């Protein structure tokens, strides 16, 4: 006890590299600005807030660039508990950009919906901040804090349309299950701490290896489960469809892209840095999760009539593809390839999925319906949007030369690089799933191209400027990533951080 006091007594404040945490700071400032501004500006000029939010994110992107360009190696703060390496930089960039797109998607939606605006942007920004922190956290505590930081605002966003029963339901389900999952995860973390006597991931790595006692196994499993929930891996996916369907569409986009990505970031960090030694535990676990996730997600998606719900399942299935290579992360020297494929897939997936949500927003503005059938004859009266939608869907289905295929490709490549039998089996399962997937993507295409317009209403679709911009960005990104896959793969490549796999 005394020792503790001593430790507390001669505490010296750490030296903080402000350049390193500049993005977080900027976003934090942005939050305060929006919060205050919301109090003072009049309702008719609330649109400023979205602009502010947008610029905050872009502003935060600047230090990310400078960090990327600075040739200082990995910056480690708070004796290694908070690290800014290439991995975190790339992910930060991804989060900020996708967040910006989401802001563009949200703008009109929020302005037209008669709900508070300021809070929306505040919540969103703080969730983003949580994600930024997540990318750099290398300590159980900070991971936990970041996780909650990005989750709690998300709970509220999900329930955003507070007079809409569906929205409530979405929020409550997400909240209860989320908290439950994180509680389970915490229990696992506590066991980890008990075993390793430290919350620093790198310390854990030292302890969690060699012979695995029941405690250790349980700890690892519970922690993995916690993140598996975040990435909505089957069977921890149950919340996703309901929440996605109930939540406002932009929020769904946010959840399905950003917060899922955050979950993967955390998962990867823990697996690579903290418990690489326990690969015997988590590799089989993730193998099963991946297989289940792909298959269940696809077959469930096949029979959806609500397009948002269908996309929810589709994003579950996509999550399965991202998980797939992790199942062999520790085999041979495949770890680098695996991480690369995860990052690549996240990048491509973000671009494509956001684009698809943009399409849904645009179409639903006209049809006021979330049914797949409402896309009938889209191509005939809105060829532009129809073509874009086709591109996004095809990319999701992983058809060259669109972004999606390079994601799938690198995933297959990584899982096969291990060269294990299980790897091959998983690859074949993935291959079959990629076919099933087209079943429902193709179904939407069919609606757009080959079916008549539902109620003969062929009035053109009015797409507001921000939405146009968002669609443009995502569309170009999807195409570019597909035709020049080098780009995405390149980011994936530099994102490989020095993990504990003997490297």
């Amino acid at each position: 006890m005394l020792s503790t006091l001593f430790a507390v007594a001669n505490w010296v404040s750490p030296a903080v590299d402000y350049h390193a945490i500049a993005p977080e700071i900027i976003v934090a400032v942005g939050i305060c600005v929006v919060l205050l501004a919301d109090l003072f500006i009049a309702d008719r000029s609330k649109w400023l807030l979205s602009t502010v939010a947008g610029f905050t994110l872009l502003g935060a992107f600047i230090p990310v660039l400078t960090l990327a360009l600075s040739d200082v190696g990995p910056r480690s703060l708070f004796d290694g508990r908070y690290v800014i390496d290439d991995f975190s930089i790339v992910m930060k960039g991804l989060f900020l950009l996708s967040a910006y797109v989401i802001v563009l998607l949200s703008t009109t939606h929020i302005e037209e919906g008669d709900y508070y605006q300021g809070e929306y942007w505040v919540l969103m920004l703080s969730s983003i901040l949580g994600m930024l922190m997540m990318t750099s956290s290398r300590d159980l505590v900070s991971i936990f804090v970041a996780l909650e930081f990005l989750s709690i605002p998300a709970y509220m966003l999900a329930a955003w349309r507070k007079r809409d029963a569906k929205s409530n339901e979405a929020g409550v389900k997400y909240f209860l299950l989320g908290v439950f999952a994180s509680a389970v995860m915490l229990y696992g973390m506590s066991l980890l701490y008990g075993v390793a006597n430290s919350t620093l991931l790198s310390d854990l790595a030292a302890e969690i290896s060699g012979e695995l006692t029941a405690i250790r196994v349980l700890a690892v499993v519970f922690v993995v489960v916690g993140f598996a929930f975040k990435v909505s891996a089957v069977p921890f996916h149950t919340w996703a469809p309901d929440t996605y369907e109930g939540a406002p569409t932009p929020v769904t986009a946010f959840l399905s892209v950003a917060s899922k990505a955050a979950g993967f970031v955390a998962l990867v960090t823990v697996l690579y840095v903290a418990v690489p030694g326990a690969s015997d535990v988590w590799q089989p676990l993730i193998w099963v999760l991946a297989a289940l996730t792909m298959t269940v997600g696809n077959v469930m998606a096949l029979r959806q009539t609500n397009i948002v719900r269908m996309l929810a399942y589709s994003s579950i299935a996509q999550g399965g593809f991202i998980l797939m290579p992790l199942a062999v992360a520790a085999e041979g020297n495949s770890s680098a390839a695996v991480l690369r494929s995860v990052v690549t897939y996240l990048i491509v997936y973000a671009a494509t999925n956001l684009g698809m949500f943009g399409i849904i927003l645009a179409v639903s503005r006209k049809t006021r319906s979330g049914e797949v059938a409402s896309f009938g004859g889209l191509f005939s009266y809105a060829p532009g949007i129809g073509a874009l939608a086709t591109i996004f869907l095809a990319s999701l289905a992983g058809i060259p030369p669109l972004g999606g295929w390079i994601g799938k490709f690198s995933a297959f490549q990584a899982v096969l690089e291990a060269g294990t039998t299980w790897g091959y089996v998983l690859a074949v399962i993935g291959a079959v799933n990629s076919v099933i997937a087209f079943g429902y993507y193709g179904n939407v295409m069919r609606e757009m191209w080959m079916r008549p317009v539902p109620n003969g209403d062929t009035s053109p679709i009015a797409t507001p400027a921000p939405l146009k911009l968002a669609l443009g960005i995502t569309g170009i990104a999807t195409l570019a990533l597909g035709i020049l896959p080098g780009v995405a793969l390149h980011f994936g490549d530099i994102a490989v951080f020095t993990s504990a796999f003997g490297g």
Partner: protein
Amino acid sequence: MLVNQFLILAAVLFCIGVYGVIARRNAVMVLMSIELILNSVNINFLAFALRNGSIDGHVFALYIIAIAAAEVGVGLALVLLVYRNRKSIALDELSEMKG
């Protein structure tokens, strides 16, 4: 030292909590069950911290307490929201979306 007893206590609490989450139909009760789990976690941390003589466990526990408070806040708000709209907080009725 009595670490094991603490751990066992924590495990018991954890199980009770889990049972509550699964068995209870009342949103508030579920929230409280989750609190139970979180507290079991706290106990774990503290017990380990004492055994290992490091402060990380204490710190972690403090964080958990704080965040748990926030969670409960949000949670109750949501429950209130639901109650407003449908005059009931029975979770079973919250199954409009399924399949």
